[in-house]
């Protein structure tokens, strides 16, 4: 297939369309195969389950898409998730004695603010001090995790407010609330990325930071903002996970950065920035979710799940490599 697409001059129209829809096609094939393999896959309840399971990674991946589009990377998402989660939990817990229990919405606001602050620190250091994103967020991965342990005293924060738990366990009509939150976040992110000047600048900065600067874009501000967005979404994901598991777990989110980066890469976003799409990321998130779910339903060992996911990531990047070859 890539050979056809990379034929010099004009690739066949059919193959161009296939190429554009490659992730969607892969998703459909996998869903089709799974529904043949197990009768439980296509059930409404299972599909809702998958959506609920992917909502946390989905939120991280939205933020990661913004970051990677600018040519950056955010390795600290799992740690920021944990920090946001325990901060929120601490304000709705009856067992956490240092802090009184407050209104759950205020608590969520404070948790989100905490994550956003960490994201802002990433953003300032990367955009002003020019520490490379890889190094800064690698540092933040450790810093935020350590702060999470300090804050929670290394213990899970439990006995949480019942209203708060609805955020993770309740339903908005037929949709689980985490799914609804993920979808709303996705829509807002889509509008920001494709219907605002800011969104166009994100692409421009990732495509070529220098020409973006020359054409008058405040590159530093754009870079700063994508890390803020990522921090905010991580804390939101942490809040959902806390409400879903009924506890603020300081170990939550370990190595979640891998799944988030995987979803973005599978979704066709280029690691060098400037190219990619949010829809692709959504499909990447779903692809990972369906594969994990399907292999669970089929009682396949989790060891194979890891091998499988790794191969899909590498495969997706290889396809992109052939594609960009054809651009030259």
């Amino acid at each position, binding site marked *: 297939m890539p050979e056809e697409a990379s034929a010099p001059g004009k690739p066949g129209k059919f193959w161009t369309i296939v190429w554009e829809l490659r992730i969607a096609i892969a998703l459909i094939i996998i869903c089709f195969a799974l529904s043949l393999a197990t009768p439980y896959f296509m059930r409404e309840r299972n599909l809702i389950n998958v959506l609920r399971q992917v909502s946390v990674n989905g939120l991280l991946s939205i933020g990661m898409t913004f970051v990677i589009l600018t040519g950056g990377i955010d390795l600290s998402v799992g740690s920021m998730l944990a920090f946001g989660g325990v901060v929120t939990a601490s304000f709705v817990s009856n067992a956490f004695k240092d802090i009184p229990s407050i209104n759950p919405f205020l608590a969520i606001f404070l948790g989100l603010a905490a994550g956003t602050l960490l994201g802002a620190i990433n953003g300032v250091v990367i955009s002003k001090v020019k520490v490379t994103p890889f190094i800064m967020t690698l540092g933040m991965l450790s810093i935020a995790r350590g702060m999470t342990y300090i804050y929670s005293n290394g213990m899970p924060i439990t006995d949480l407010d019942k209203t708060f738990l609805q955020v993770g366990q309740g339903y908005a009509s037929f949709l689980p609330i985490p799914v609804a939150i993920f979808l709303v976040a996705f829509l807002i992110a889509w509008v920001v990325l494709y219907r605002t000047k800011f969104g166009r600048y994100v692409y421009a900065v990732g495509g070529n930071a220098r020409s973006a600067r020359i054409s008058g874009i405040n590159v530093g501000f754009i870079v700063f903002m994508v890390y803020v967005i990522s921090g905010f979404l991580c804390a939101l994901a942490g809040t959902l996970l806390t409400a879903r598991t009924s*506890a603020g777990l300081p170990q939550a989110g370990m190595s979640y950065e891998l799944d988030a980066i995987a979803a973005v890469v599978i979704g066709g976003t280029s690691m060098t920035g400037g190219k990619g799409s949010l829809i692709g990321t959504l499909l990447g998130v779903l692809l990972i979710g369906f594969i994990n779910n399907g292999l*669970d339903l089929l009682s396949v060992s989790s060891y194979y799940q890891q091998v499988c996911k790794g191969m899909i990531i590498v495969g997706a990047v290889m396809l992109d490599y052939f594609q960009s070859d054809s651009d030259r």
Partner: protein
Amino acid sequence: MRKTVLFLAALLLVLSAGFAQAGQKYRIGGATYGLVGEYMKLWATALERHPAVVQGLVDLTIFDGRYDASVQQSQFETMSSQGYDAILFVPIDIEAGAAAVATAHANDVIVVGSNTRVNSDLLTAYIGSNDVISGYMEAKAVIAKMGGKGNVVIIEGPIGQSAQIERREGNLKAIAEYPEVKVLEMRTANWSRAEALALMENWLTAHPGQIDGVIGQNDEMALGAVQAIKAAGLDVKDFAVAGIDGVSDAIMAVKNGEMDLSILQDAVSQAQGALDIALGYLVKDYQPMSDCWKDYPEMKWNGGKDKNYDVPWTPITKDNADEQWAKRQDLTAR
């Protein structure tokens, strides 16, 4: 800037020298595999509250092994070279700690193993709880609630860790006694609540209406399964659910009737008992100071010279959950 650094370094040197000379205390290190997670926190807290530490007989330092055998190894080297009298050792894994124990032994430092065994003859003594027994107890309890027949799922710890291997052995031993009990699924969720939650959700989909019992090899995973059952709109009370360790959240879940059983792994006794054993080798005619020997009359002190001390497991059920909860509140109060 450089002056400040030099000053701080000098200050640190003076301070540490001062500490080293203070009194004739016994220097004892608590080498934990990592201070994240409730169990090791409780273990460390219990040590700090041991009467010998409170009264100043022991100068205690807790080390964070950061879940890494090589970190523990270098901490042992540090303690050996700094003239520690004894080390209370909780290794990350049964096979990983032998070299560390050998290092201490070569420097005549007493090493008392606690919680997790080390495959080494050089260990002075060991105090812990037998994981096969806890695995057996929890599976028995789950099967009992199921009325001796039905389908269970087992959520396992990280494959290859000694706790997983031994708890599985206990689980399967109990299940083997009941020909009408079938294991539908047996998979790892790596001690993680979030992983167990997704796993159980998928199992409930794959085996609708067929799962009667959930055997979690630790409490966190059992709690994840409880969340999944609730999320699926099912009644937790229709399932037999058990876990091991007795973490606070599990005690709460037993109180609320969401879990049928948690089995307390007694961090206090494992930690304080280990310190008593170490002091037994250091102090002439030492009498144990911790309450754990009174709490478990079946665990005999025997002059402190036994090779093995077995801390009994305490089942936490609806009957004693309130009492255990009060005890825990006391231990976790800051």
